[in-house]
């Protein structure tokens, strides 16, 4: 019996030749990640356990990105705790304001996660790195602390669900739409405890900036990890960034999949997830009249250069509708600089957008665009739960960057086609 890519990476890190779904393993981790919200709890547990040193200072990454630059005194205290720990442990991969970006855009960009790696992160969107052909999963702060101390973690080998995407993407549809459509199909717990492997012709033709959002949102279907077998597009992305050796795994022809779901991509139009769950998706042609107060383009899901280029293509020569706040957040400094070089900032500024320093900010209702009671936002983020971006009685609609940009211009949820694009 063959193995899936997920099983192979877990087996390799457990020092085993083969593993099967349901096996309990102790694995070595290549990287442990935490941010300004989750690291303080990890550090408390680390100290409580009486630990002196992290297992390997090159393999512990701390990225204050959620409420940074500090949004208030309490956040400042949390960040200081993370900074002090980084200093005490002499961690080379601590990213201060001025170096930081949104963690799940930053780590791949910096070559810190590579194909074949096993990564645990105290952040649910750690699964993003599956787009590189790595096994990456979100854990709590205590599990992260244990991994920082021991360099290991325990896992049950998940069964893999294979998703096959046939055909070619429609105009203005991207990876975000494929994953939203998939979540609509299998629901928010449809992949609970499972690995989600994305494959097929449409995935093979997908850029990295469209692959990251797919793996990123696998947690929104309850998945343990999302993963894409590395190919030439992955290699192209990784080769200039990698500072160490890495290994590309594939799924065997006779690998065992718990389920296989197939989709005809030609039929998937840009999706919009209505409140209050990512599974509540409708095609853009079916949304009806939904006025908005704010549009957010950014986050670990869709704040990459490819996303900003798409937003710019829609916003060029246009302006946000009156009384609509358009907030654009490049996910890292490299993306920020690139967007600036390409002249995207001029397009955004002319469109009445504000351009923020990299931060998770509004995505989780932190700051930099909080919604008042009864307000509505369209966002390229990943969650539209009750109160996610602010007041309990505010609403978030999730979409790709093209739809978010067009919606900002029209003042209601709408696709670029309505602008004649």
């Amino acid at each position, binding site marked *: 019996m063959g193995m899936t890519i997920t099983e192979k990476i877990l087996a390799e890190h457990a020092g085993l030749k083969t593993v099967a779904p349901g096996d309990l393993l102790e694995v070595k981790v290549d990287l442990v990640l935490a941010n300004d919200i989750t690291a303080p709890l990890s550090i408390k547990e680390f100290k409580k356990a009486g630990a002196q040193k992290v297992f390997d200072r090159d393999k512990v990454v701390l990225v204050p990105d*959620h409420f940074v630059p500090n949004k208030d005194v309490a956040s400042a205290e949390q960040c200081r705790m993370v900074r002090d720990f980084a200093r005490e442990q002499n961690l080379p991969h601590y990213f201060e304001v001025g170096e930081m970006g949104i963690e799940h855009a930053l780590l791949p960009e910096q070559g810190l996660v590579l194909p074949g790696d096993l990564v645990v992160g*105290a952040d649910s969107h750690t699964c993003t790195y599956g787009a590189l052909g790595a096994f990456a999963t979100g854990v*709590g702060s205590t599990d992260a602390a244990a991994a920082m101390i021991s360099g290991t973690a325990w896992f049950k080998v998940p069964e893999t669900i294979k998703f096959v995407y046939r055909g070619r993407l429609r105009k203005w549809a991207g990876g975000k739409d494929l994953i939203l459509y998939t979540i609509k199909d299998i629901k928010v717990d449809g992949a609970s405890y499972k690995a989600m492997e994305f494959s097929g012709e449409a995935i093979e033709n997908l850029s990295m900036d469209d692959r990251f959002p797919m793996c990123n949102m696998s947690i929104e279907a309850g998945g343990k990890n999302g993963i894409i077998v590395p190919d030439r597009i992955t290699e192209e992305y990784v080769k200039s960034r990698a500072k160490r050796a890495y290994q590309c795994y594939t799924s065997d022809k006779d690998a065992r999949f718990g389920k296989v779901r197939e989709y005809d991509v030609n039929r998937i139009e840009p999706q919009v997830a209505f409140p209050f769950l990512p599974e509540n998706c409708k095609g853009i042609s079916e949304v009806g009249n939904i006025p908005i107060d704010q549009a957010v383009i950014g986050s670990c899901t869709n704040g990459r250069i490819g996303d900003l280029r798409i937003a710019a293509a829609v916003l060029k020569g246009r302006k946000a509708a009156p009384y609509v706040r358009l907030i654009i957040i490049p996910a890292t400094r490299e993306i920020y600089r690139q967007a600036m070089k390409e002249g995207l900032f001029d397009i955004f500024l002319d469109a009445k957008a504000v351009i923020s320093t990299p931060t998770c900010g509004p995505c989780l209702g*932190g700051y930099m665009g909080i919604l008042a009671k009864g307000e509505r936002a369209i966002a390229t983020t990943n*969650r539209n739960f*009750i109160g996610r971006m602010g007041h309990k009685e505010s609403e978030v609609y999730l979409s790709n960057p093209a739809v978010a940009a067009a919606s900002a211009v029209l003042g209601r949820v709408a696709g670029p086609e309505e602008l004649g694009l």
Partner: protein
Amino acid sequence: MKFTGKAFTFGNDIDTDVIIPAIYLNTSDPEELAQHCMEGADQHFSVRVKQGDVIVAGKNFGCGSSREHAPVAIRAVGVSCVIARSFARIFYRNAFNIGLPIVEAPEAVDGIQEGDEIEVDITGGTIRNLTKGTAFTCKPVPPFMQELLDQGGLINYIMKKKGNRR
């Protein structure tokens, strides 16, 4: 391990933003987090809930973010146990790791209404609805996980084990 308390019922897919909105994540102090526990679903939960009370919920409880603040807030507000039809994966792990007992028991969820007096025995694997006089079975929590709960979480458990070895 046995707990007795009043049931507070919630629906399906209760996410971690409902359990503890991110606006309060600028602290990791359990007492502060407790004040805002379940605020997204019930503004006054933290005032109404008494020490020992039980949360009873539908499927996929704790979905969304990996924030350990969610089970920490539930524990700190005085909830003795969460019974749900099913739990999201990261929440499940986090709950045990910080010492919050949780039980998957779909039949019990169907047979419990808001305000019912509930007795949960996670060692024996039984849930009694004292108000209605009904009983349900659930999978007992294995001994090592109970010890983990007894110790108040994974780190204490590991430290105790280390201590015993010396």
